[in-house]
């Protein structure tokens, strides 16, 4: 179990995490969700004992500050900014990480297979793409088969295909019954990976709820960028406004503000008005 009690982090007079209390039970996966600067990464670094903080953090009864070394034995961590030693190869990086955890070399081989890094083991880290670095980070975090996984924006450097594969892997890891704390600002990803979302804003907890309630609880909005067929931009704007949407034309399409959970309503409105949509994007 992980217990954060009245956690506060200040940088000078600036408070970046403000009196946060969160308990994560065994086998539970929790997302720290919020915009940049909400305090998600700071909380993860406090749990790892990298930052001085006020309040208490315990991991399976071990104090994250005074018993940090023992506590970190229980945790694997994938940072948002993947900073490995650039001149080490993939296998040397994992060997070093395994040596620091006193793990056998066979474990390194298992992790290389798990994240499919086999063809890249002799590459130096500085030669790796963002996606491969992310896989290396995951392999290093999973080396000790930790009961706790801390994942800081685990798919932020990945393209769509790699993100799907990573989410599938993380979903499997979640099913294995370990504690997962995931920071993210991707709503869909959070929905697939966690049991509970803790939404943060300016260092404070604003909402705690299951992921399927988050959009409604926070009244999240999104923008749809629609490209109508046959350049029917004006007609599309008019139809959407008639349907009660906030819509406006831009250079080659229509921007319409929608509820994050009911994006289909705008499309249905246009379909009813006989307007075809050639392409669309979701902007948050």
């Amino acid at each position: 179990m992980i217990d954060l009690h009245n956690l506060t982090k200040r940088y000078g007079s600036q408070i970046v995490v403000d009196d946060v209390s969160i308990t994560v039970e065994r086998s539970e996966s929790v997302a720290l969700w919020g915009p940049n600067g909400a305090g998600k990464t700071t909380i993860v670094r406090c749990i790892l004992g990298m930052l001085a903080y006020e309040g208490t953090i315990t991991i399976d009864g071990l104090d994250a500050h005074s018993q940090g070394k023992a506590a970190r034995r229980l945790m694997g961590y994938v940072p948002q900014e993947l900073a490995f030693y650039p001149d080490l190869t993939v296998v040397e990086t994992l060997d070093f990480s395994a040596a620091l955890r006193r793990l056998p070399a066979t474990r390194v081989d298992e992790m290389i297979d798990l994240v499919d890094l086999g063809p890249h083991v002799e590459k130096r880290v500085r030669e790796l793409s963002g996606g491969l670095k992310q896989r290396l980070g995951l392999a290093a975090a999973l080396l000790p088969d930790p009961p706790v996984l801390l994942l800081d924006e685990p798919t932020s450097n990945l393209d769509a295909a790699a993100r799907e594969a990573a989410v599938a892997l993380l979903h499997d890891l979640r099913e294995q019954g370990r504690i997962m704390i995931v920071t993210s600002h991707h709503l869909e990803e959070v929905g697939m990976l966690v049991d509970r979302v803790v939404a943060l804003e300016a260092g404070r907890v604003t909402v705690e709820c299951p992921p399927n309630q988050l959009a409604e609880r926070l009244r999240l909005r999104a923008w749809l960028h629609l490209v109508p067929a046959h350049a029917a931009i004006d007609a599309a704007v008019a139809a959407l406004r008639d349907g009660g949407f906030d819509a406006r034309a831009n250079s080659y399409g229509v921007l319409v503000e929608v509820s994050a959970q009911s994006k289909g309503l705008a499309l249905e409105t246009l379909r009813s008005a006989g307007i075809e949509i050639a392409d669309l994007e979701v902007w948050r």
Partner: protein
Amino acid sequence: MTTRAAAASHFDVDLVATIARKELRDAVRARWFWLYAVGFAGLAALLATVALPRGIAGSVGFGRTAASLVALVQLVLPLIALTLGAQSIAGQAERGTLRFLLSHPVTRSEVFVGTYAGLASALVALCGFGFGVAGLVASARNAGIDAGAFVRIAILSLLLAWAMLALGMLISTFASKGATALGTAVFLWLALVFLGELGIMGTAVATRLPVDVLFLSAVANPVEAFRIAALSALSGSLDVLGPAGTYAVDTYGRALEPLLVGILVAWAVVPVMVAWRRFVRGRDL
């Protein structure tokens, strides 16, 4: 603290060795290491050659080679070791690799000691390479090497390098950026190598410092402590230093060299202890 936590939190020498090996391997692989090593060895070989013109051999030849090496060491080794130490902690913190390291079950003490040990080992390799090449060149030119004096100078050089490494790491733990640490280290090198000697000479002339104050002011500078200890090891006489040298020999006699070695050891230990304390109590990462 629970038994489980206590067992996991003790200072682990094996982990220190793992970190030190990685630091040493990184250093030996790095271009700067070979640039420094080849530059140092090349200069040492050049000095061994030019210090021994035709017709000069035997102990006189060795003395000239060794004196040239001392001059080279007091100029080059402090720069190498200071910049190496300065870039260690600050550079790793800036690149984020320190965060990767500290996400493992290691303590800050283990990371610090492992880093220092690895870099100190790299300096052993570098000094060994430089002195080895110089020794080979001097032997080839029939310089009549005094092996005892040569080894003593090599050991003093290593002590100087470790003292400078300690000062570099001290700078590194206080600097927020690698570039700041590097700039500070270069400024300190200038101060120790050039301003120190010139400053003391100028002050002595301007203020007519008593000779004992002049001597103690000089040896407080680790570079000067090394120079005086090396000259003493080489010839047993410090006449070349003028009145301060005569004073030192008359006052301290046989205790002079242990005193100077003690000063170098203190410079190697005290800054690194302060740096360790600063790092362990720690900056946020």
